[in-house]
């Protein structure tokens, strides 16, 4: 493959390079004050990024964490592992619901595909459910409160998966709350 600059790739894909760099920058230092001035035209790129990351969560990350927890439940002879697995499957359902709602209403609304005169982004702004706190619970259970046994490596690997997910989810939430919602509000005012 021929080497290309980020600029070339962005042009090829029709993505504003400053927008791309602003989003990419979040992975290095997540902040919610940006030097880039988001435009309503950016919504298309932003939403497509968000949809892609939903796909990444539901098709890759969540199933692989499930799988690891399942494995731990099978090899570990302890009721707490079974409970942990159940805790996660309930959590996973909550996350799925969260993602589905955004894909059904918020994102289409952002792109003017959903034309419901009664729908206002305010609803979502005030009730954007927290899907991070249970993840933190799970992390703390793994770090501090589970039996010390021969499955420490397994648990450490699950922890690493959780940390990675948590970080991505944090950034995802910043994009939704500090970029997407304000942009949609701006558009509503027009």
């Amino acid at each position, binding site marked *: 493959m021929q080497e290309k600059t980020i600029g070339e790739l962005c042009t090829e894909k029709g993505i504003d390079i400053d927008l791309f760099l602003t989003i990419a920058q979040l992975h290095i*230092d997540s902040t919610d004050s940006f030097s880039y001035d988001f435009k309503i035209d950016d919504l298309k790129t932003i939403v497509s990024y968000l949809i892609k990351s939903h796909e990444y969560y539901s098709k890759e990350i969540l199933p692989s964490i499930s799988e690891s927890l399942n494995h731990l439940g099978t090899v570990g002879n302890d009721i707490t592992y079974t*409970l942990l697995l159940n805790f996660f499957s309930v959590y996973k359902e909550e996350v799925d619901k969260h993602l589905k709602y955004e894909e059904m209403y918020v994102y289409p609304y952002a792109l003017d595909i959903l034309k419901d005169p009664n729908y206002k982004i305010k609803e979502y702004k005030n009730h954007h459910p927290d899907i991070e706190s249970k993840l*933190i619970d799970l992390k*703390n*259970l793994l770090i501090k409160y589970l039996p010390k046994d021969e499955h420490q490596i397994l648990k450490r690997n699950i922890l690493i998966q959780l940390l990675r997910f948590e970080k991505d989810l*944090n950034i995802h939430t910043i994009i939704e709350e500090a970029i997407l919602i304000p942009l949609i509000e701006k558009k509503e005012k027009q």
Partner: protein
Amino acid sequence: MEEKKHIVIVEPSVIIREGISAILRKSDSNYFVSYFDSITQLQSFKKKDKVNLIIVNSNIISSNFSEINTLKESFINTKIIGLISTYNSRILEHKFDDYFYLNDKTKDIVNTVINSLVEDKIISNTIYKNNLSDRETDVLKQLVLGNMNKSIADNLNISIHTVITHRKNITKKLGIKSTAAMAIYAVANNIIEIDSSLDEFK
């Protein structure tokens, strides 16, 4: 007269450290504030036992955990507050005795500082070793069994307000917010046994 409390701010940015001391001056108490650019510089400070409180910018330690650990060792009896200045360094919160955010309101910053100055380090250390008090354990059990605040209050003969306070402390000590995760904690620590009353968690 009570001695002035000595607060040390470890922060290379002049704007931030002057900002913090301006905020501290707004509270009634009279503090003596001194500045250090880095942890290394603070380590060479002679009168360590005279320091009542240290405020450190999390940015300084984010790349080097060992620095904060040695700092804790040299200041065993002094509380260390973290100034969390970027979203990512939220993961460092637990490295400190307490913390505030760069964009916190004056009131919250002052409260964090005042609370840290009055609370005894030794006592709060045992708190953070997550030993739940007997009462908190009672509340935890009730929560895990699916009781609401109101019925917990009735069952334990305490006010709803007290129940809520206990809940908050349980969350703070364990780092666990949801009841379902508390249930797992309770089972893993033999606080409750799995029986028919816990069917929903099985």
